[in-house]
């Protein structure tokens, strides 16, 4: 572990910017989201949870996959520098690991069955993630339901604790360790620094509500699939907008769109949402998920049943963004509790 004085942060960011595209939380007109920065001054590190998740860095809202014209097909401009992120929370680094299982095929699978998304991989592989410890978890934070916590380090390369006048940089991966070793402006960590960090960690843990045990939820949910009434109840207030899915760090459904005119065009990948009726509209006009309750069920099933069956863990990291952003206060924690305590009988 090394110490970085706060007035040296800018030096670190500038140094990173020398070889990486550096992203950090930035206040854009009142919304804090991850954006390119070139100095520490651009950042806003005050929020525990940013308005938009950093998944956008690795999986953009709209992404041109290739362009074509009469001369042929050209891949979209490829990025030549790796990505570094400063100030990413543990719920968000964990979400990137979950997305990597889908796009990067980062799971044990026979080689011939693996699919690796080149667009994701070129960004995520080689990225250097400076994670930020959460000194002040929010009431909407429930990362501890999924084994996380305000001081979790999963998915980070370097874990950063703010101790007031300095940051403690703790390497998590060899990549993080190598980078820290290359810095010549860090200081040694004293015993009192460690104590300060431990105190912050302790008080952060104390703020979190105790986790609700959700083991076995993935096994329970398929049994509820056909129970229309309970889904009607949990989705009653939902207006079926896509706000929750778009701020979610783990939602990753997308749509392919072709834009072409005359002799040139391009193919894009854009975010999609299972909350929209068109998500499952079939060419015949039939929609297997025509009702709001069916779409809400899909979102819950995907996160807490289908994904766990395929990849062994829940597709949710408890960041709480969906709770904060919902115009009608549909709280995923209440939804899960409701489903878990449902007696299994319809009506």
């Amino acid at each position, binding site marked *: 572990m090394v110490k970085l004085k706060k007035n040296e942060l800018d030096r670190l960011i500038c140094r990173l910017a020398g070889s990486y595209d550096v992203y950090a939380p930035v206040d854009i007109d009142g*919304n804090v989201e991850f954006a390119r920065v070139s100095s520490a001054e651009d950042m806003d590190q005050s929020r525990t949870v940013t308005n938009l998740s950093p998944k956008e860095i690795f999986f953009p809202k709209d992404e041109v996959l290739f362009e074509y014209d009469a001369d042929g097909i050209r891949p979209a401009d490829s990025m030549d520098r790796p990505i570094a992120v400063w100030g990413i929370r543990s719920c968000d680094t964990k979400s990137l690991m979950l997305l990597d299982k889908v796009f990067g095929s980062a799971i044990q699978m026979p080689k011939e069955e693996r699919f690796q998304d080149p667009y994701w991989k070129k960004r995520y592989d080689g990225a250097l993630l400076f994670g930020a410890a959460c000194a002040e978890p929010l009431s909407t934070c429930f990362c501890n339901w999924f084994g996380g916590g305000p001081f979790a380090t999963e998915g980070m390369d370097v874990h950063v604790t703010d101790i007031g006048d300095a940051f403690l940089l703790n390497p998590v991966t060899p990549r993080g360790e190598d980078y820290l070793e290359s810095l010549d402006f860090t200081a040694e960590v004293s015993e009192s620094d460690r104590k300060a960090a431990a105190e912050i960690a302790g008080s952060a843990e104390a*703020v979190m509500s105790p986790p609700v045990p959700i083991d076995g939820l993935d096994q329970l949910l398929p049994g509820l699939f056909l129970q229309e009434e309970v889904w009607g109840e949990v989705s009653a207030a939902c207006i079926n*907008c896509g706000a929750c899915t*778009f701020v979610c760090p783990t939602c990753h459904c997308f749509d392919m769109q072709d834009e072409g005119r005359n002799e040139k065009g391009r193919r894009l990948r*854009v975010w999609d949402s299972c909350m929209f009726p068109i998500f499952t509209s079939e060419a015949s006009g039939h929609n297997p998920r025509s009702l709001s309750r069916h779409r809400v069920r899909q979102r819950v099933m995907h996160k807490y049943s289908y994904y766990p069956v395929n990849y062994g863990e829940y597709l949710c990291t408890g960041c709480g963004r969906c709770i*904060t952003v919902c115009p009608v206060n549909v709280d995923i924690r209440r939804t899960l509790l409701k489903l878990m305590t449902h007696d299994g009988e319809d009506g």
Partner: protein
Amino acid sequence: MSVEKELRRTVKDLLEEGGIDLFIGWERGSLPTVASPLFITDPVDAERLIFDITCGSNPAVYFTKDRRQFDGRRVGVVLKGCDSRSMVLYIKEKQADRENVVMVGAQCNGVLDRGKVASAAGGREILELEDDGEKTVTLKGRDYEIAVERDSILSSSCLSCIHPDALECDHFIGEPRQSVTREQRLREVREFEALSSTERWERTRHEYEKCIRCYACRNVCPSCYCAVCFVDQNDPPWIGGTCEFTDSMIFHLVRNLHVAGRCVECGACARACPMDIDLLLLNRKVAMEVLERFNDEAGMDITAKPAMADFKEDEKQDFIMG
């Protein structure tokens, strides 16, 4: 008697002997700033009802969501002034049957804007909110407590509301309120109009560039209930589904025009927007044009034909080439 108490009693009576099968209202949400819509069938649950500054969405919208639940049922709903205009619109447009709706108007002192309240708290988390209903709202967090001026955190639609009281209702709870004048309501539109064309364009661009196309504005809007929205028609698509500025802008412009003469300026869209886009300005401009040109305001007169489905033969046509 407080508005909330009277509301609970009224709803309990309605469910017990007033012949309604379902009531739509609000209960305290899991966050102190947003109430959660509540659907009750059991009179006992009337005790859960609240009606305050956090009841921000427009409950009329549920009449066009899962329609099955309303089939053959008599439904009660608590309404702010703007919400009642949406219900009037629905009755005119045959989306709700006046006979089967019991409209309960309640005294509305405005609802809060989440963006404004968040910045009033300086980005710190709000854990408790106390509203004196008149001048001050107190925000409390883990290590702070601040009193803010009520008007400073109200939704801009409420600050310029010309009809705070439900227009058409079967029961009214609380005291009628003063409304602002038409001129006050249009202040922001006038100020914007006074800017140069380039400035207007730059500001519009700045706002709408934030759009992430989540369609919260559309889905929370009672006036947006097309079975298939034009942005959901994809064979071929009318406009791209990307967040590229012109795609987003055209979505919003067309939405504005499609709800022209039907938008009741409840501001639910602006409050629902996760990116805090000032969506109401364009709606207000269009509403102003509708009033000036066609002498109509959405959801005001239950017998009048909606402005865009109507016409007069000798209407002003100054914009037609000479």
